[in-house]
């Protein structure tokens, strides 16, 4: 997909996870909304989120705390067994690395 700050650049990935919540709108109707700050500044309907990803990705739904694809092992942090230091620590330290690269 295109990036907001570098329009000429495309980013590809094979696995992307975002939480979905049922949200009641001002009209009283409830809709499934995706919370994905990487792609949008506010919650969006599932189909809008999926369209933004291009290439019509497979959508896998899982209950909170369950991995999307249990056969791969791990918590669902990525498509394989969790990193040795644990998903939370790995995510935090990876982001620290990226932040340092952009400083």
């Amino acid at each position, binding site marked *: 997909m295109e990036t907001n700050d570098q329009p000429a650049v495309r980013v590809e990935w094979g696995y992307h996870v975002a939480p979905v919540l049922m949200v009641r709108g001002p009209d009283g109707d409830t809709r499934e909304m995706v919370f994905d700050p990487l792609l949008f500044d506010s919650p969006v309907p599932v189909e809008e989120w999926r369209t933004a990803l291009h290439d019509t990705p497979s959508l896998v739904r899982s209950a909170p705390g369950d991995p999307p694809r249990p056969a*791969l092992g791990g918590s669902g942090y990525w*498509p*394989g*067994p969790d990193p*040795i*230091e644990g998903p939370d620590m790995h995510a935090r330290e990876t982001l620290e690395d990226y932040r*340092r690269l952009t400083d």
Partner: protein
Amino acid sequence: MAEAVTTLSRLLIVREVRDNETGATISFHQGGHGCLSIHAANYASQLRYARRSQERQHPIGVRFADAHAIAELIRADNDVPAQVWEEGPDGVRVLFQGHDGVFRLKSDHPDSARIRTLLREALEQKARVWFVADNPDLVLLDILPATA
């Protein structure tokens, strides 16, 4: 050989970190030590990597400027190889289960044979490896079995 020493990163495990007036002296379980200058770019981050390696006994990427001067400490990552294949004269390409992107091992890497063997063994055994890579090019600099 001198060029290899000055430019390559190796995965090492920190045994001890000693602060001093000019920075920190860091010794490694594999033997040897190096000095990280307090004037090094991102000194605080690099020192944090060293202390993590010592606490967790996990490897860290170490690039020496000379025999006892550390040019850079790089965070090591870990994952299980999902695909490994040869691609022309550029060397070996590697896909990991968890990480995005295609990593590559350049054919002129002086330790290429050992790393290729290790990657193929890890692939067969679905075993985890530690690795250190240049960003953003994803060029693999060193690999170790995660059980080491």
